[in-house]
């Protein structure tokens, strides 16, 4: 039995620390240690994107990051997407466009799409579909998700 590892990190703007085992993924640490269960476990092998988080400005599958690797890093999860003023434009447009059914994939899609819109609020449909290729949805058939991201992009760039 190995000793636990002490990790200091910033999660959704707050400095946080936790103890984890060396083998634990960041996904496990977020959900089981920090209680941030908004990030979902789908395949647990990097295919589905349900566990997408933003790590130091890059979207990654948190199932493919070790919790210990989060030391000194800045993490954004779905819990940090809305602000005190209300829902993020992406969250609002996912609701308005009914871009979810069972909802398991939704946090991953929103965290991934947010990173795209921050760089490219005018991303077109092709670019959005390519960017979100690492996120699987088994319910919607994707069209409503793409429409929601296009719509949120318009809000983010002030065109709507």
């Amino acid at each position, binding site marked *: 039995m190995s000793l636990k590892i002490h990790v200091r990190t910033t999660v959704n703007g707050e400095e946080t620390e936790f103890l984890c085992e060396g083998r634990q993924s960041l996904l496990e640490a977020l959900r089981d240690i920090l209680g941030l269960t908004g990030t979902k476990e789908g395949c647990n092998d990097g295919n589905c994107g349900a566990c997408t988080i933003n790590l130091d400005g*890059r979207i990654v599958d948190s199932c*493919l990051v070790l919790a210990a690797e989060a030391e000194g890093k800045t993490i954004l999860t779905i819990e940090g997407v809305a602000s005190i003023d209300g829902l993020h434009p992406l969250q609002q447009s996912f609701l308005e466009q009914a871009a979810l059914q069972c909802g398991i994939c939704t946090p991953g899609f929103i965290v991934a799409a947010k990173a795209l819109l921050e760089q490219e609020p005018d991303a077109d449909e092709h670019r959005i579909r390519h960017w979100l*290729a690492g996120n699987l949805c088994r319910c919607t058939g994707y069209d409503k998700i793409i429409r929601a991201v296009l719509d949120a992009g318009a809000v983010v760039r002030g065109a709507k």
Partner: protein
Amino acid sequence: MAEKGSRAKALAGGTDVLVQLRAKRYLIDRLVDIKKIPEMNELTCTEQAGLVLGAAVPCCLIYENQDVSRLYPGLIDSAFLIGGIQIQGRASIGGNLCNAAPSADAIPTLIALEATCNIVGPKGKRTIAVEDFCTGPGQNVLKDGELLVSIHLPPPKRNSGAHYLRFIPRNEMDIAVAGVGASVVLSNGKIESARLALASVAPTPVFATKAAATLVGKEANEEAVLEAAEEAKKAAKPISDMRGTIEQRIHLVGVLTKRALNKAIARAKGAE
């Protein structure tokens, strides 16, 4: 790592090793995060010295680098194909090479671009060509305690071009049924030299030297490309599995070789 021998593994992006550990493909006692070693993160690209690519540099930093994009568009083809955006934020070309999958999307490109591996271990340093690195599915030449530190790509030659492409049933996020990396050097409209490498059609990536040799000295035209494509099909020794049959894969090698060469030739002539 030397202390634990075969019971130790290096962790770069983790997109292969963490999945394999979870699936208990092998058991280890020590996983060493190499990402804080400066040499592993080197990304130096100049027309004079070529590219030094640290083994842990993630794909996203490669295709966002303007010098690499300008000098090695063939490498960008691979970096932009591996996984989705989430994977490209972590996965490295060095890891793709060490994982030694027959289907690896970066290895044919590295072979086409004459890349070499800088290896460091308890007995010192050594350098080997990428085409000699893989020894079987998931197997490579690294001995216990040895690490791939970086990959070196020689400076691009004048009037040269390269391209990698693969066939997958989806648009993105899939494993190659077959893939082809090609590079050519042109001189007065003729092909001075060429290199071809194939993915997913043998236990290791295939360096198709005979097929490339058919091109040398010929006009860079459709006839020469088709002859090389036919020869490349002979170098493919695929199996039938859930991703494709032997017949389909051999056929794909012909089609992909033709397309890879046409694009490499276009790039050598100055196209994007």
